């Protein structure tokens, strides 16, 4: 058996119903076509009926004229008016003829068949010449057909007759017939409407059934599967779907449940494994934390040492202020800033007068004490922004930012005065010489330093304990 034939009966029903629902418009269209066709047929029938009836009446006129032409001859010849009346009465009783008139050879009406005989004496319009050869002449008005015929045997014409057919019976007959056709048609229309209504209701029923069928057997299980899948996706492996059928969908549901069970087992194993891993990780983490702690401690120690080294690298070990290397670094930076931002900066070089004598007289330790004390005194009397460093031996440098040469001179003078007045225990007064210069446009660090040094030289040469500027 081929796979195509393995479709479950429910889906077969589903497809059949879908086909039926789809056939409904075709059915509706065919009904419309049949309806239109029958409507046209009805009109043709009506028209045909009218033509046939008129033809029949024409034939009746012809036959009756022929008959009366002969039948009236004898009674008219005998002037048996009663006989003529009887004949007229019989014919009128059996046909829908309105009137039959019998006239003499002049066309004067002798009798219309009635006792009252109101037509007596009237004159028929006779076209005698034509009636010599024709059996009858027919004239037609809206309401009647009239036939005039000769009453004759061979060429012997003894009178004329006139038959009048009212169209009223024709109209009545047609009305009845048309009414009967219309009635049938209306009945048929009702059938069609009924049929279409039933078909529509059936189709609606089928569609409702389909939607319920689709919802129950396809959509609802799929939604359940979707929800269950989401639960699984969210990590809830307790999800399962009911297996409601043994068809393809049922198989899918079963497979889904099996898959979820398998995932659940795997998840449990993974959880157990994760738990072991967690323990391992905790141990490792602890170890790492310990190692890290140790490392951090080592880093701190190293950092401290580094800082210490850094301080040692930039400061003078005796006085604790910046050493020459650090000062040169700062000078480089500040001169660049001064050039870029056009900030006035000045440099003061300080040299302790006759410091060799101090060392010689009081020893190097006393000399160190002098250096330290002077450093403290200068450090206290300059701004924090000013860079103060030991240049070497008994020489110091003060980089005064945001000050021109005048500002530097004033500061230097202030410091000279202060140092001059200060008494160092065991030694007494120590003076210093000051040289100051301003960083000018076109200066380099070296030219700047040289000019400052030149100013100091001038101060020294000029007798010391003074401030010289360049």
């Amino acid at each position, binding site marked *: 058996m081929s796979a195509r034939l393995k479709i479950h009966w429910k889906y077969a029903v589903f497809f059949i119903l879908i086909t039926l629902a789809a056939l409904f418009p075709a059915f509706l269209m065919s009904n419309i076509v049949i309806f239109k066709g029958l409507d046209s047929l009805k009109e043709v029938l009506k028209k045909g009926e009218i033509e046939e009836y008129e033809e029949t009446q024409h034939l009746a006129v012809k036959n009756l004229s022929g008959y009366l032409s002969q039948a009236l001859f004898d009674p008219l010849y*005998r*002037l*048996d*008016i*009663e*006989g003529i*009346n009887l004949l007229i009465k019989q014919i009128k009783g059996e046909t829908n003829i309105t009137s039959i008139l019998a006239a*003499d050879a002049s066309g004067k009406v*002798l009798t219309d068949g009635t*006792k*009252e*005989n*109101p037509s*007596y*004496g009237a004159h028929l319009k006779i076209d005698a010449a034509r009636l010599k050869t024709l059996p009858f002449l027919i004239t037609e008005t809206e309401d009647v057909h009239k036939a005039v015929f000769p009453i004759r045997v061979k060429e012997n014409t003894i009178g004329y007759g006139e038959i009048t057919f009212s169209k009223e019976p024709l109209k009545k007959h047609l009305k009845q017939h048309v009414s009967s056709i219309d009635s049938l048609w209306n009945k048929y229309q009702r059938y069609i409407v009924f049929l279409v209504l039933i078909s529509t209701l059936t189709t609606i029923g089928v569609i409702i059934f389909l939607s319920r069928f689709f919802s129950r057997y396809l959509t609802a299980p799929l939604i359940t599967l979707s929800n269950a899948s989401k639960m699984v996706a969210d990590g809830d492996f307790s999800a399962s779907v009911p297996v409601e059928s043994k068809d393809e969908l049922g198989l899918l549901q079963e497979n889904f449940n099996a898959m979820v069970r398998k995932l659940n087992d795997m998840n449990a194993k993974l959880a157990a494994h994760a738990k072991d891993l967690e323990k391992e990780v905790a141990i490792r983490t602890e170890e790492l934390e310990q190692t890290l702690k140790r490392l951090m401690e080592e880093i701190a120690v190293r950092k401290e040492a580094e800082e210490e080294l850094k301080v040692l690298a930039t400061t003078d070990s005796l006085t604790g202020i910046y050493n020459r290397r650090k000062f040169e670094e700062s000078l480089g930076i500040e001169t660049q800033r001064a050039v870029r931002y056009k900030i006035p900066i000045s440099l003061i070089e300080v040299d302790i007068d006759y410091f060799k004598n101090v060392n010689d007289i009081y020893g190097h330790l006393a000399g160190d004490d002098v250096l330290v004390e002077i450093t403290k005194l200068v450090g206290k009397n300059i701004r924090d922004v000013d860079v103060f460093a030991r240049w070497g031996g008994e020489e110091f440098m003060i980089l005064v930012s945001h000050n021109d040469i005048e500002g530097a001179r004033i500061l230097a003078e202030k410091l000279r005065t202060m140092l001059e007045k200060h008494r160092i225990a065991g030694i007494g007064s120590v003076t210093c010489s000051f040289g100051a210069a301003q960083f000018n446009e076109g200066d380099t660090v070296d030219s700047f330093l040289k000019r400052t040094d030149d100013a100091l030289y001038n101060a020294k040469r000029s007798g010391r304990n003074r401030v010289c500027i360049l």
Partner: protein
Amino acid sequence: MNLIKSMLFLAFLTAAVFSNAFAENNNEFRLGVISDQPGDKIEDYILMSKYIASRLNEFNIKTGKIVVAKDVDEMIKKVKNKEVDLIFESAFSTIEMKEKAGIKPALAVWRKGVREYRTLFFARKESPVKTIADLNGKTIVFEDPKSTSAYALPKAELRQNGLTALPLEEKGNSNNAVKYVFASQELNQAFYVLQKRADAGAFSDNDWNELSEKIKAELKIIHETKPVIRYIGSFHSGISDKLKKAVEDILIDMDKNQEGKDALKQASKIKKIERLTDNDFKSLEYVKELMRYID
């Protein structure tokens, strides 16, 4: 034996006498009419016959009977044979039967709603014929040889007026006679005149009234006879006065109850029946006079 023979002879005579006995003696009332269609007449008059018989119990009459004769002569025989108690016939036949069989006219019968009639002579309006005398040498149309009002009476009237009436086909001096033809129907008579096949016609005033107005407008009446009773009831002369009176009373009262009306209607559409008056008897005399001129 002679005695026995004598008694048997007497019994035979008695039986012979009573075998033709009248109504009160044979338990039935016999109504006589003349027609060549006995079936129709029996059907027409049977109700009347029963009606009469059922009211004559005191005369020991149990049933009614219709006696139909094909013509007057046969009826005369039946009268003579005492086969009939009451005869309904036209005035002319009644006079003939009275003359030949002794019947006694007593009742005027409104046959077809008509008590009496006159025969009218008519001609075309533009015709030069203006009086009955002008018909001499002319042609007149009658209905039928059996007709009283449209043949016998007008023919007699012509003769009474000194004219000779001869059939058209009969050879003779037509200038001194009125030639007559038959048209079978009263209406045809009118058309014979209108279509100039005859110069005049004659039928009863009732027939004249039946003509349409348009036709009457083209005709004129040139003469009319005296009135004649339309239909007459006559008793056999042998009927007792008491029975005669009783039957007359029954017939005269017939139009006063529904059963009687129905019976009258069925019997030639009789409207009612009356006793003959003196004028009626004079009319009969006139008829008798005319009959002298009938062949």
